[in-house]
């Protein structure tokens, strides 16, 4: 009885969100469309309650629930809080956009909340099947969300592409897991680790399994050479959904990688380090170089995401506490940056007009100096120029890689960062140096303006005082892995 109580309390945030998602779906049926704001408020409150529950039950120690399939440690709690925060921002930024595009329905909020639950399960999964179920819950919600705007042909195409390729990746992941299971006789992450430490194993089967797992994960992260879906899906999806796909799920994918590769397959670190290294280098090169050629802002940000993922892998491949901490710091910074970046696109969009071309940013400084300034911060942060958060993200990752002895890779990454700076500078050039072509006043609700302002200024503020976020990441990793 004690056990069940502990289990339920540990998973209470997930349970609350699932219940609320279903309630929202039902309540939507009985609401007049003019009262739909209630659904929005309800979704925000749900996240707030979940955040309170996660925060108040937090302990630095590691606890296992549901017979060891579900773990509650510092990393899980920190990542979950970040996921709530990110999702809450997504709700704020997307409200007007989906209102204007016939997507302002209960389904949107229910599906996003379901995807949040999927992410939370990925973050807390301590069993390969749990992890997989979490991932599928996330993915299926996302497929549906991409296609939510039913009459939008581009979105439907993107959803199809995303679904087919995503299913393939899930299959690979599952196949890899089955090999690991075959060799170790367990699905539980800790038991897999123990089995690998102790017993004699057929190395070739393990490596083959590892390759499939890494490939599956790389697909979900969008790392080269599994990146093909990223630009198409980013571009095709309604921007509100792109905002979701590009941001918080990366946090969950990070946790998935830590759970799977570090906690489960630590003994194979030498092998997965090499794979991550190759993917990191390729992602940084292809992401940065291809981004230069883009004329579509969403596509450009998609390629920029690929290069950011490369930098995250750079931190992960160090396979040390320092490396994981830096990767976590990078991915949290990335989420904050990408939320502000896509938030800005949403802000500039209006009924029947998507501000997704790079040229749509032309002369923004003359239309609205304040928003141009915010976008300037976001772009310099993505380029990694101090005193913005993005600089410290790059800095921590590079120092971790240098500590691990990858001097020449670090020099290489630095050169690529210069190439990357070029296309971010181009955005600033369009905003500041060019004359505006679009003279519509910017229409956005006040709450969105304020939150977006805080979000972008946070990139500068945390850049000036990065200690707090660094400590948080270091706390999350050292308490969970140390």
């Amino acid at each position, binding site marked *: 009885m004690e056990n069940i109580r502990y289990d339920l309390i540990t998973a209470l945030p997930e349970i609350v969100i699932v219940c609320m998602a279903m309630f929202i779906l039902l309540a939507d049926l009985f609401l007049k469309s003019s009262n739909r704001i209630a659904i929005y408020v309800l979704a925000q409150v749900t996240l707030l309650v979940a955040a309170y529950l996660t925060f108040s039950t937090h302990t630095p120690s590691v606890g296992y629930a549901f017979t060891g399939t579900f773990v509650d440690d510092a990393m899980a709690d920190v990542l979950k809080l970040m996921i709530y925060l990110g999702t809450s921002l997504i709700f704020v930024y997307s409200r007007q956009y989906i209102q204007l595009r016939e997507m302002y329905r209960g389904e949107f909020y229910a599906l996003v909340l379901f995807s949040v639950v999927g992410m939370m399960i990925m973050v807390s999964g301590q069993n390969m099947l749990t992890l997989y179920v979490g991932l599928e819950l996330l993915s299926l919600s996302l497929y549906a969300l991409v296609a939510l705007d039913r009459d939008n042909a581009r979105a439907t195409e993107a959803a199809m592409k995303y679904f087919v390729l995503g299913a393939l990746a899930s299959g690979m992941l599952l196949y890899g897991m089955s090999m690991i299971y075959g060799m170790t006789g367990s699905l539980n992450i800790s038991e897999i680790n123990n089995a690998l430490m102790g017993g004699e194993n057929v190395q070739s089967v393990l490596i083959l399994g590892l390759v499939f797992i890494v490939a599956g994960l790389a697909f979900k992260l969008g790392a080269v050479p599994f990146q093909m879906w990223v630009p198409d899906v980013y571009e095709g999806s309604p921007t509100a959904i792109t905002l979701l796909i590009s941001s918080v799920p990366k946090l969950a994918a990070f946790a998935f990688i830590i759970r799977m590769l570090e906690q489960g397959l630590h003994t194979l670190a030498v092998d997965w380090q090499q794979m991550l290294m190759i993917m990191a280098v390729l992602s940084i090169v292809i992401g940065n170089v291809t981004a230069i050629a883009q004329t579509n802002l969403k596509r450009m940000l998609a390629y920029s995401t690929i290069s950011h993922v490369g930098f995250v892998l750079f931190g992960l491949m160090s396979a040390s506490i320092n490396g994981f901490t830096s990767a976590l710091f990078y991915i949290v910074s990335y989420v904050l940056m990408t939320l502000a970046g896509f938030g800005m696109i949403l802000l500039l969009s209006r009924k029947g007009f998507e501000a997704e071309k790079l040229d749509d940013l032309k002369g923004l400084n003359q239309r609205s100096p304040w928003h141009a300034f915010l976008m300037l911060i976001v772009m310099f942060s993505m380029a990694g120029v101090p005193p913005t958060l993005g600089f410290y993200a790059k800095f921590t990752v590079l120092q971790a890689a240098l500590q691990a002895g990858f001097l020449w890779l670090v020099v290489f990454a*630095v050169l690529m960062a210069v190439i990357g*700076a070029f296309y971010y*500078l181009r955005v600033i050039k369009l905003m500041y140096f060019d004359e505006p072509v679009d003279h519509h006043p910017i229409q956005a609700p006040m709450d969105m303006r304020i939150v977006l302002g805080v979000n972008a200024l946070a990139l500068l503020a945390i850049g000036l005082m990065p200690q707090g976020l660094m400590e948080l990441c270091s706390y999350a990793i050292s308490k969970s892995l140390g």
Partner: protein
Amino acid sequence: MVDYFIQHILSFSIWVPVLAGIVVLATANDSKPNVTRWLALLGGILSFLVTIPLYTHFNFADGGFQFQEGFSWIPAFNINYHLGVDGIAIPLILLTSFTTVIVIISAWEVIEKRVAQYMASFLIMSGLMIGVFSALDAILYYVFWEAMLIPMFLIIGIWGGPNRVYATVKFFLYTLLGSLLMLVAFIYLYYQTGSFDITAYYRLPIPLNVQVLIFLAFFAAFAVKIPMWPVHTWLPDAHVEAPTGGSVVLAAIALKLGGYSFLRFAMPIAPDASHHLSGYMIALSLIAIVYIALVALVQKDMKKLIAYSSISHMGFVTLGFFIFNNLGLEGAVVQMVSHGFISAAMFLCVGVLYDRVHSRQIESYGGVANTMPVFAAFVVLFAMANSGLPGTSGFVGEFMVILGAIQVNFWYAFLASFTLIFGAAYTLWMVKRVFYGEIANEKVAALKDLNKREFLILAILALLVLALGIYPQPLTDMTNATVTQLLSHLAQSKLPASLPSGL
């Protein structure tokens, strides 16, 4: 109160202009640009006044770091907000805050679009550059160093000439590439010493092969900034496209960031590599001095000519650094300060003409002295200073460097003094073509002489150029102790007794 101010004077010097810039931005009102202008001028003057006690409270006998202050900034990486200045940094800080005032005045009615953003950019950049000169923590330094690129990028890009986008992106990427390599060197040193404290780097023994790599990483950052041949090509582009104020700050201060950083980082951290590679560095300096002077000779664009002349003059600075003697080093510092005044004045003079005729081409002018006699007098003075006439500040630094060079090798001095001839040739030839002879066209005939604002800034600069040329003692007194200490540090080998585990 006064004590508190003196203890934190460097913080005030950095943050007063930054804050002033933010205030100017926040109170911007496009319909009342004059309010913005006066506010910016007030902020600039205040920022300048704040830096004055650095001179009056300076201990001239101490060659180490003074006015130190600090607190723990990012404990996770042992990064501190640690400030401190020596006798080399202070003249450059004063130069920075002074130049900012000049720039604000010079932009008064010239800049008409987005006045607040223009003024704020310069104020903020001034604070950031003072930060570069006073940071004693490598990451703090790096943050200031990179952050100052942002306002400069905007200044050239928004208010620049027709080809401004190319110039400003080139400027940004060139500098970024170099500085990122420097960042890698900092991280490497962090893992050797456990901190980003610059003085800890000074004490760290490093094997020669590693020193060479570290030196090259720093070289990538600083040689671009100074700029040395052959990575100088961004400078003429940036200068030509930048608005007058941007050119002034670029030439007067931004180039000195590179020179200063050689003395602060590359040389004391890797002294053996500096000696080891000094032959190459001297060769590059001499190429800059002689070859770039010849390039300047054939320029048709006045701004480009002055830009090349800057590169050539900065060649003297690096030459002075790498001959490792007292005269050379001190002369290089004097040359940096003096070039700050002269190049600023030269670019302002071109600005005066450009505002009236909207052309920088030499061939658009001729006989300007007939219509603008007062202005012509100033220009001749600055031109003389630029070519190193005794009695002007341009003479002192170059003369000291040449004297220093002759102690090392006659031919270095011989080649370097050649520039005095070339320098006189390209500067005076330009003056002749622009100012003397017949009045070339009706645009020149319609020119009006200097207004009060222009007269004021040029007069101040002229006084400074003469003062420094006739009586450079206050400046050399300031740098003397620091230069002596630096040279004795450079003379000691930092090679470890036994080789540690290398890279």
